[in-house]
């Protein structure tokens, strides 16, 4: 479809090769392995393709989304993807040839700088796949970094995103790492400090501290960090970057700050897109650099002293260190990082703070209006960012179904994810929701509740 060859070209090339047909080029493949062809449909001209794919896209369109749970709808200024989609960003490879890749390299260097500043950490890598996998890599990294600890025991709060916990399990289990659950308090929805204290004095390699946690609740990060450091554990902060110009960043937690900060980069410039591509970010203190996985871009000079950028510390990576690399990661999420860099440049610290604050206030606003409805209860009383958990006077899925009919996605049912708190719903409101949207939610929610209660 995208091959340029004319018959004449092919003829000339075959002549140059002194063969009669292209098939001869495949004569080293044992004939037992050759297939007749693929059982696939015929080609589609772009026009027909466009019709079919656009119809499918249209099918899923037009929902008002109040689901968060790790993927957040934020407004992305038009300039972000207009620039990011430029062919030179979109269709270049990993910048191995530095001199022909200064565009991407400088962009990534600027990203590393912004991310380190946003997290108040020393350094940032140039990305991981996504939030969950960046946590898994952070756990592996913590085990490499914490030379004093032998246990490979990681304290993992139950209130972390469940998919993160599963991903960490899947990725770290071959390396004999043990994840120890730390429960949350029934009232606050925060890490249960009393339970945590039971680990006091034990050999703990690292603790994972989400901010906010899966329930949207803000953790007592200062106390947690200081406690963990006192135990000789490494502190891994898992944070929402959009919150970070409002909320205290990992580098400022407690006396000395977290050691590793990671998380999902999606809120700053990636569309929801059914869950990906997003990007994971990963920051650490200076002293851990050589244990950091992933690409790192360094600023250096050329022979004339001119500033330039290049991939660096590659001795950590698989293409140099092979079996001894810090990780197997190769292709990462460069384009999303480009978008995030442009996004952060456009919003700036003040822009992001306003988005965070507006999201928080919208969430607070919706919550206040819902709590007035009979039987609706807030499950946790800890301070929250832009998500909260409600208990309803009727089954969540019934309300969900009613509201779905009106193209409103009211939140995520926690029934199967956290059966221990009962049939609850996790609701998220970001700055994208207008007063009208919030009002409409309240009305339809209330109607749905009444409908259900009547039955």
């Amino acid at each position: 479809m995208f091959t340029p060859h004319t018959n004449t070209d092919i003829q000339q090339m075959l002549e140059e090769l002194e063969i009669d047909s292209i098939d001869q080029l495949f004569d080293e493949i044992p004939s037992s392995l050759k297939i007749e062809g693929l059982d696939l449909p015929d080609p589609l001209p772009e026009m027909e393709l466009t019709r079919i794919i656009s119809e499918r896209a249209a099918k899923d369109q037009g929902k008002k989304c109040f689901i968060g749970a790790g993927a957040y709808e934020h407004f992305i200024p038009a300039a972000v993807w207009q620039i990011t989609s430029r062919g030179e960003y979109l269709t270049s490879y990993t910048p191995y040839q530095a001199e022909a890749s200064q565009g991407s390299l400088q962009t990534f260097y600027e990203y590393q700088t912004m991310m380190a500043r946003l997290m108040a950490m020393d350094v940032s890598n140039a990305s991981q796949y996504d939030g969950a996998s960046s946590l898994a890599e952070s756990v592996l990294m913590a085990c490499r970094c914490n030379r004093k600890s032998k246990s490979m025991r990681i304290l993992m709060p139950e209130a972390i995103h469940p998919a993160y916990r599963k991903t960490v399990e899947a990725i770290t289990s071959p390396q004999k790492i043990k994840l120890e659950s730390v429960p949350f308090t029934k009232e606050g929805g925060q890490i249960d400090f009393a339970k945590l204290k039971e680990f006091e004095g034990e050999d703990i390699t690292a603790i994972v501290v989400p901010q906010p946690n899966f329930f949207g609740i803000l953790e007592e990060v200062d106390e947690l960090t200081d406690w963990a450091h006192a135990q000789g554990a490494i502190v891994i902060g898992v944070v929402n970057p959009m919150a970070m110009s409002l909320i205290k960043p990992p580098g400022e937690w407690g006396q000395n700050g977290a050691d590793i900060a990671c998380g999902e980069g999606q809120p700053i410039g990636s569309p929801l897109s059914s869950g990906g591509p997003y990007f994971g970010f990963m920051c650490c203190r200076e002293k851990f650099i050589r244990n950091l996985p992933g690409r790192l871009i360094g600023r250096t000079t050329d022979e004339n002293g001119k500033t330039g950028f290049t991939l660096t510390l590659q001795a950590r990576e698989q293409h140099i260190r092979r079996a001894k690399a810090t990780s197997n990661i190769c292709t990462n999420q460069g384009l999303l990082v480009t978008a995030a860099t442009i996004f952060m440049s456009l919003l700036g610290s003040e822009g992001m703070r306003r988005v965070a604050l507006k999201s928080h206030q919208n969430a607070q606003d919706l919550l206040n209006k819902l709590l007035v409805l009979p039987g609706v209860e807030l499950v946790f009383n800890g301070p929250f960012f832009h998500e909260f958990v409600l208990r309803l006077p009727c089954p969540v899925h019934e309300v969900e179904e009613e509201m779905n009919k009106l193209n409103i996605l009211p939140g995520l049912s926690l029934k199967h994810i956290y059966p221990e708190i009962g049939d609850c719903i996790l609701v998220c409101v970001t700055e994208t929701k207008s007063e009208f949207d919030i009002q409409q939610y309240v009305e339809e929610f209330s109607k749905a509740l009444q409908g259900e209660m009547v039955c």
Partner: protein
Amino acid sequence: MLIFDKSEQSRVAKGILLKDPVVNSSIPNKFLRESAPMLPEVSELDVVRHYTCLSKLNYSIDTNFYPLGSCTMKYNPKAAHVLAMQPGFLQRHPYAPELASQGVLQCMYELERDLAEITGMHTVSLSPMAGAQGEYAGVAMIRAYHQAKGDDGRTEMIVPDAAHGTNPATATMCGYKVKEVPTDDSGDVDLEALAAIIGPQTAGIMLTNPSTLGVFERQIEKIANMIHEVGGLLYYDGANLNAILGHARPGDMGFDVLHLNLHKTFATPHGGGGPGAGPVAANERLAPYLPTPILGKENDHYRWLTKDDRPESIGQLSTFMGNVGVLLRAHIYIKQLGKQGLEEVSKLATLNAAYLRRRLEAAGFELAFPNRRASHEFVVTMKREAKEYGVTANHVAKRLLDYGFHAPTVYFPLLVPECLLIEPTETESKQTMDQFVEAMTKILEEAKTNPQLVQTAPHTMPVGRLDDVKAAREPDLVA
């Protein structure tokens, strides 16, 4: 100049800034940030101009021939990009109810089925987010399989010396000891050496076919038998599928599990280093262990299958369901090319490689495996030139930039000294390759007559040769 150098205190892109919310936050002070992070303070025009100008410093498929071996830098269709960027796809939340998601789920389901057909495998999981994560999934599945059988003594993973770095790195991440098997003179796996290292300790082998040497592993059936006989399993690194698409299938060769790089064979753009997608496919034996989620179809309703449906799964490798936006582009590509288009890909990718190889050989370049057929890529060695003129593979690579061509892959595979791994792909024309040959011929001439010109290249790029040693010795990673 960095974007930070263009910052002015309290400059903002006013058109984007939300109205300042009345500060009425219920969040206690101790949770709040004390001082603002020093992000850029610039106008919208500053941002647009800065990053537009930066982008222009890149070589890319849209602007340059990019014969980067093993990376399959082919044309990335604009239609796939535009169609995948439609609001219906971009705005869908990963946890949106399935009933409100049948459009995208149908695409994903068809992609799974098409990839199964293309690879000759039974079941596909789309979730891995790049080739290396696909490898991780596959090797973890091998591990899970042996574990399920209580076969705990299998501690070694065999990897050829020609393998991509992700292969051994992945084996290590999965807790295996890596055993390297050498390549014989003709570019195939050394079967005697292989026989000597396999046994009950062998968990499996990771192979690319054609290998990264650009030749088809002719003994693949024999190797499969050998490995299976000792109870091991075969992992196929699908990075080179572009060479055999529609001609041969890893599933038929005896592989048990594989990954595909959709950002290679299936033309999704590389984005300056991702995002990619590395779906894994397995035969019936290993299918139960595939990572979740996987798509199911029941009475025309598409739904994600999770750990509940697939209890033996190695679990979940990403927060949601992988790089859906990339998967969509690959799906669109497959639909557009269809049967005939996909079969043509490997034919013309191979023809291009063979032609370019022949022309470079005629121009005086030394082939690493002159007696073999080239697959979709081939290896040239600059050993002789390095010795005679002091012009290395890296020098040639840098000099090519001056001629407007991206460099081939250099110093990989590791076993060929001073090598260039060259992959033209099927979307480049004979005319472009002829121009490339012309440049290479000139460079060879330069190497002989004016080696310094080549050694100090590039001369026309935005920066000259960069000091990598300084970069690594005094890491400056943050402004």
